[in-house]
């Protein structure tokens, strides 16, 4: 009797994981775009390095709830940065 074997490679992500990954990458992109608007060049470099470190440090996390928490945290940071930029303009 033929069993239906999944043709996906073992390392493929589930749909939820895939969506979360896309969300994280989109968040990273928005973060970098917002950081580019910071007026001071030294601040920009500092923020970019900080964002890079934060994202890279948690790159290997697998627990979806932890990942969701981190995404929310990053969103908060992003909104903070955006409001400060809007106020400073």
């Amino acid at each position, binding site marked *: 009797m033929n069993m239906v074997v999944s043709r996906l490679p073992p390392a493929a992500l589930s749909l939820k994981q895939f969506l979360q990954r896309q969300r994280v990458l989109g968040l990273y992109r928005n973060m*970098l775009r917002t950081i580019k608007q910071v007026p001071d060049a030294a601040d920009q470099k500092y923020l970019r390095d900080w964002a890079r470190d934060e994202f*890279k440090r948690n790159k290997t996390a697998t627990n979806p709830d932890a990942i969701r928490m981190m995404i929310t945290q990053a969103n908060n940071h992003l909104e903070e940065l955006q409001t400060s930029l809007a106020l400073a303009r």
Partner: protein
Amino acid sequence: MAARVLMQCVRSLARPSLRLCSANLTVRAAAVSSTAPHRSLSFAGDSARTRWLDQTRISSLSVSCRQYGDLPPLTLGGIQERVMYVLKLYDKINPEKLQVSSHFMKDLGLDSLDQVEIIMAMEDEFGFEIPDAEAEKLMSPDEIVQYIADKKDVYE
């Protein structure tokens, strides 16, 4: 007599080197003709102006091309050069290992966060935004060049 003076002024303006941009000269001619009273003098000024405008138009054929405030046209080779230059400046890439066909993740050992940074650097370099859905598919310099050439209508 005033007309004769005006003619001399205009002719002396027309004599300077062709490198002067014609806008500059037309401004000066407008200033010259506005100081003179209307009717006959302005008519003379117009004819003189059109005469040396013709001269400048004919002489402008010696100028190779006119760019009205736009960038020079993109070529496939130019795009590739700029893409490779930006990639060589990126600190995570080893410039010796970098080839046009090298895959960011498989050959150069980068991860998706680095790829996001690279695509953003390309957006800065070429001055237009690349949407997320298409950006995540670009995994080698060659693909980036193809995408930019596609978006900017560069055919060769």
